[in-house]
């Protein structure tokens, strides 16, 4: 892991010296996540976690966590561990709620997350390959995780799409500048 980061840094240094680590262009990284309609006897909105991880599958940035924030005595946190991969990779060391990351569950439909390219949420990314990961887990329902590969650079040109299977619908990731 360290070696890889070091290599990434080495490659990035010439450019970094000129421009810094964040893209200079104004623009956004936009993810669209579809929560599909399901024909089931008992439906609850899914818990969803979104994060960015390295090719070594280490979480380096939390992007979003949608869970039941309305229940008394923080009871909604009881089920956060069902977002299993997110939980082990970093969820369990977070103190909920997390500003700009956590929020209530979302209904069926398409949900957009838009992050300015110069946001602190993206400041840890050095140029190189990453995964944009979405994990969904539904009470008395299923669980699904999808990884969207993308290449980060100082002038990112991202246009990726992954089709979910059961708990997730289409996920798109695009940059515009």
């Amino acid at each position, binding site marked *: 892991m360290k070696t890889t980061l070091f290599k990434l840094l080495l490659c990035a240094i010439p450019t970094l010296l000129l421009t810094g680590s964040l893209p200079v262009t104004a623009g956004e990284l936009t993810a669209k996540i579809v929560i599909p309609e399901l024909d089931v006897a008992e439906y609850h909105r899914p818990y969803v976690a979104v994060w960015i991880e390295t090719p070594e599958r280490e979480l380096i940035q939390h992007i979003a966590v949608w869970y039941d924030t309305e229940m008394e005595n923080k009871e909604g*946190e009881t*089920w956060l561990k069902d977002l*299993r991969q997110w*939980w082990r990779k970093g969820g*369990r060391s977070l103190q909920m709620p997390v500003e700009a990351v956590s929020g209530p569950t979302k209904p069926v439909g398409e949900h957009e997350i838009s992050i300015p390219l110069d946001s602190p949420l993206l400041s840890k990314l050095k140029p190189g390959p990453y995964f944009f990961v979405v994990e969904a887990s539904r009470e008395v329902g299923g669980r699904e995780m999808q990884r969207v590969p993308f290449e980060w650079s100082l002038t990112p040109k991202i246009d990726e799409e992954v089709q979910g299977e059961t708990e997730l619908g289409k996920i798109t990731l695009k940059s515009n500048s």
Partner: protein
Amino acid sequence: MTKKQFPLTLAIAATTLLAVGTSSAHRLWILPSTTILSGENQWVSVEAAISNDLFFPNHHALPLERITALSPTGKTVELKSAAEGEIRSSFELLLEEQGTYRITSQMNGMFASWKENGEPKRLRSNEEELGKMDLSKMEELKLFKSNTRVESIITCGETTEVALKGDGLEFEFITHPNDLFSGETATFRVMLNGKPAAGQEITIVKGNDRFRNSVDEMVLTSNDDGIIEITWTEPGRYWINGSADLEAGEFKGLPMKQGASYTLTVEVLPE
């Protein structure tokens, strides 16, 4: 111990005697309702039994008097709604701290078997009681001392270190026992009396063996550093067990065999 409980305890002694040092179909286990939790003041329910099938009680309860639950900071956690039935013990734990909890059944017992008028006799006891008996006159006396440990480990919130006990057989958790996923490999170091145990056999059996026709056990042998690597091919609950023969000792000048065993139940989650 009340008189009413005595015959049951004797029966367990016989079971445990077989379970230590030799292979036996009787398996000791502690099974929590879940091993990974989030949130505050969570409850888990726990079953503890000695059974043939994993994890279905069908033989004897694992006695509550041997079981302790420790919090991440080492406090004793009360066994709530504790009940010891014929074939299963059960209790619930309130997890008031964040971190890793340890539920342990520990028995440092002595066993004696001998013949009286040609009849085989067995006794589960301890050093004090056996010391009072006139062992030298017993026919075909066999003495056995065991360190029998059965564990399960659960975590609420972030995992914390599982400390080594330094006695008997145990694992040093290089991979945390509450971070096991299908398709991944877990690394544990087998320790015997505080030192890495090389060449120690460890048996791994997936639960729900009642619903398949073969046990499908996996037997691994620890390397020179005591390391075993378990690659989980399927999610589920697993029973992990090893038993070691220790150097023979003496009790009141009589030869005494010694052994140690360790049993751990874990959960492996789908990727």
